């Protein structure tokens, strides 16, 4: 049983693509597509890695990240943030909010796989 990754993303096609890529590499991919209760989902699963989209229905990815970092159980969980808005200030906001990694869509499959792998290496 591989490590668990929680993907919080609202675009079905992107969920499908990432699940395919990571699953083939042996990851246990869980998904959540709503911003409002994304934190509760993470709290319940306590995944090894979280992949978090910035633009989510109901709540912004930055807000969710802040909640995660504020939580004792999740504070050290590596978080990879994905955004479709390729602006510089988004990257800065993500780093300030405590994102472990930041990636702009569209990404290459190899790149996201490599990044996720590195993030769980102690």
């Amino acid at each position, binding site marked *: 049983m591989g490590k668990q990754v929680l993907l919080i993303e*609202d*675009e079905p*096609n*992107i969920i*499908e*693509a*990432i699940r*395919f*890529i990571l699953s*083939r590499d042996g990851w246990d991919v869980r998904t959540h597509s709503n*911003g409002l209760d994304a934190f509760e989902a993470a709290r319940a699963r306590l995944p090894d890695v979280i992949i978090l989209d910035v*633009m*989510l*229905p*109901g*709540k*912004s990815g930055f807000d969710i990240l802040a909640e995660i970092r504020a939580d004792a159980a999740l504070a050290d969980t590596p978080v990879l943030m994905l955004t*479709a*808005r*390729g*602006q510089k200030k*988004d990257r800065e906001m993500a780093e300030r909010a405590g994102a472990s990694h930041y990636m*702009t*869509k*569209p*990404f*290459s*499959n*190899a790149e996201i796989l490599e990044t996720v792998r590195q993030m769980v290496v102690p």
Partner: protein
Amino acid sequence: MATLNILVLVCLSYVALLFAVAFAADRAALRGRGTWLRSPLVYTLSLSIYCTAWTFYGAVGFAARSGLEFLTIYLGPTLVVIGWWWALRKMVRVGRSQRITSIADLISSRYGKSNTLAVFVTVLAVVGTTPYIALQLQSVTFSFAAFAETGPGTGQALNRDVTAFWLALGLALFTILFGTRNLDANERHHGVVMAIALEAVVKLFALLAVGVFVVWGLSGGVSETLARIDASKIATWDVSASRWVGVTALSAAAFLCLPRMFQVMVVENEDEDHLRTAAWAFPAYLMLMSLFVVPIAVVGLDLLEGTNPDLFVLSLPLSQGQDGLAILAFLGGFSSATSMVIVAAIALSTMVSNHIVMPIWLNMTGGSAVISGDVRQVALLARRLSIAGVVFLGYLYFTISGGGTALAKIGLVSFAGVAQFLPALLGGLFWRGATRMGAMTGLAIGSVVWLYSLFLPSFGPAVILSEGIMQQGLLGLSWLRPQALFGSEGMDPLVHAVMWSMLLNTAGFVLVSLLSFPKPIERLQGAQFVNVYEHSPTSGGWTGGLAQTEDLLIMAQRIMGPTQAQTFFAGAAGGQGIGGYLPEPSPDFLQALERELSGSVGAAAAHAMVGQIVGGASVSVEDLMAVADETAQIMEYSSKLEAKSAELTRTARKLREANDKLTQLSRQKDAFLSQVSHELRTPMTSIRAFSEILRDTKGLKAGEAGKYASVIHDEAIRLTRLLDDLLDLSVLENGQVNLNVQSGTLADLLDRAAAAAGGEAATLKIRRRRGDEDIILSTDLDRLAQVFINLIANARKYCDAAQPVLTIETRMSGETLLVDFTDNGSGIPVDKQDVIFEKFSRIGDTKAGGAGLGLAICREIMARLGGQVTYLPGQQGAAFRVSLPLEQRVAAQ
């Protein structure tokens, strides 16, 4: 006696001639002929009533007694006419524009139409002029006597009183006949003016003739005459400088203030420009009048030692047996006397009847004399009785005083009396700060000082003022000695009295004017007088009724502004059941108007204005206009400032709004770029990820490969749609749209739109009333459908109700079709309502949906179709209204 009879005959013929001339002139003026009546020459000659019998005979006597000092009497007026031409012009202009009837009227009018002041001036004028009239009577009777003495019938002593009586009667008759033909004292008395102009010529001619006779007939030429003058004591007469200055100033003041001078100079003036001619012609006349005074005096002193030098002009020819020349000289003196009495009587009677008799009469009849004919008759009667009264007073004075030597000096005493008007007169013309109280004070002080120090002592010692008062002063106070006030001893009595009276008069006038506060009407009149050139020279009157209301309307318009005034007047007229803008001037209406006006100019001014127009009193419309204009200008200015300030506030608000909008737009643009980036990158992410999967993954199942390929395909289409929207908007905004006009019903169109927007999905319930939708449209149906689809899709996407319902209501407003799309969600916040139609605008940052182009596209489409789409605030949820004028289809086709 033969000479005397001839004299009487000549005299009567001369009077008959004067009557004829006056009558002819009046007739000519009445028929509008005889423009020569209004020539500047006649005006100048009429001014010569300044030269009365006192100057005609008296100048020679003056010269015989005091040498060249007589010239001061001519010098004063000359200086005024030449140097003060502009002051005279102003006085004439004021007189004409204010319809001034006398100097009392001028002063009273200037100081707020104070009748007290007018009475004061009138009384002083009568007191000052009566002895002067007596003097004229005296000179004529003396000259008659001179004839009688030298004539063959010396034994028959001529009764002086009888002569004076008949003379007075004749003069009064003439004056009444020609001086009171018209009630309007402001109208010209052409007959009288013409007669005195003729008399002016006669007296000049007579004096010149006597002079020529004396120089060439008696002395034997110019050089001999000069030698005689050198030899006489006149040449060595030393002249006191203070008397020179004093008498010159006095005669100058009197020239301006004498009621009879005011009458011919201002009231009878036809044209201001006549003053221009008079400025040189009148001094020339005076120069001719004084040319032979010294030779006559010198020769008279030589030949007629011991006789009255005042009669040299007459007695010299008589003594030489020149009866013809003597009669001419007599006529000259007669002319001087009669012209003065006639004009003075007219001037004084106007004052007496207007300011004393009429007010008393009106008061006695309770002021209810509303019938105009009634008042006219009374006024004419008052005027005629006043003339008779004034002349009779002169006669009375003459008989009582006995024609003694006291009369000889009365000319200058009289001058000093009327000169008291000067400070109030000039102050009124040139100083807006002059007040009624100041004028009253100055006049009162001046006239009291004049009475005490000059007039009363002039009757001779111990006649009225006892010897004790003259020597020790009033109540034994030495500083109150009549001819040495405040210890100023050793001065010439005349100069002393003139100095103190004028000094105290002026000081009192200025001081009290500065200390007292003028009433509104004084301010108004003050402005009218001082700024007479700025105001219209014409003056209006009212006949009452609607004319009054119109005046009120004109005034109200100037104060309240035309629209407001017209509305107010029209409203009042409507209230009275009358159409138009002119209501009856009922008390209610006037009170309302006053209140209305007081809002603009204050209660006092409003009261005065309405009162003046309605009272038909002496303030002319132009007066009120002047004040109204001033007020209007101030108000206009302040309202301009207010408007400016309001405009600035508006501009500032607009700028702030624009700035807010720009800031918001800029933020939206940033947000849009993010949004476009997101909208483009999201499908591209899927496309890239799946194309890499398809490329790199070996051994994909056939189903999986097909599925991933179709994802790529769908996402490519999504990208295309986004680009299409952007292009669509760009095209619409640039107006490069070709409308494809088709016909169809609204119901079909809405069906199509609902279906295209995913109507079959049960998430959004759509309520419609198909009965209302049976409207045939002729427009670009595809574009209109696009708008409807957008609105329905928006409701589907954004309505946050648990069970979303969209109500589509259709109705006609005139020729405009209105389709309202109202959902039951929470609507759009007020601060967003402005921007939702801007492109790239989306509500909320993270809500899923389009790129924020939908409503922007809708707005552009509706604009192209000739209608509009707007947000309807105040509904239960979000509500959009599509309005489309149906006649637009005609234009579209």
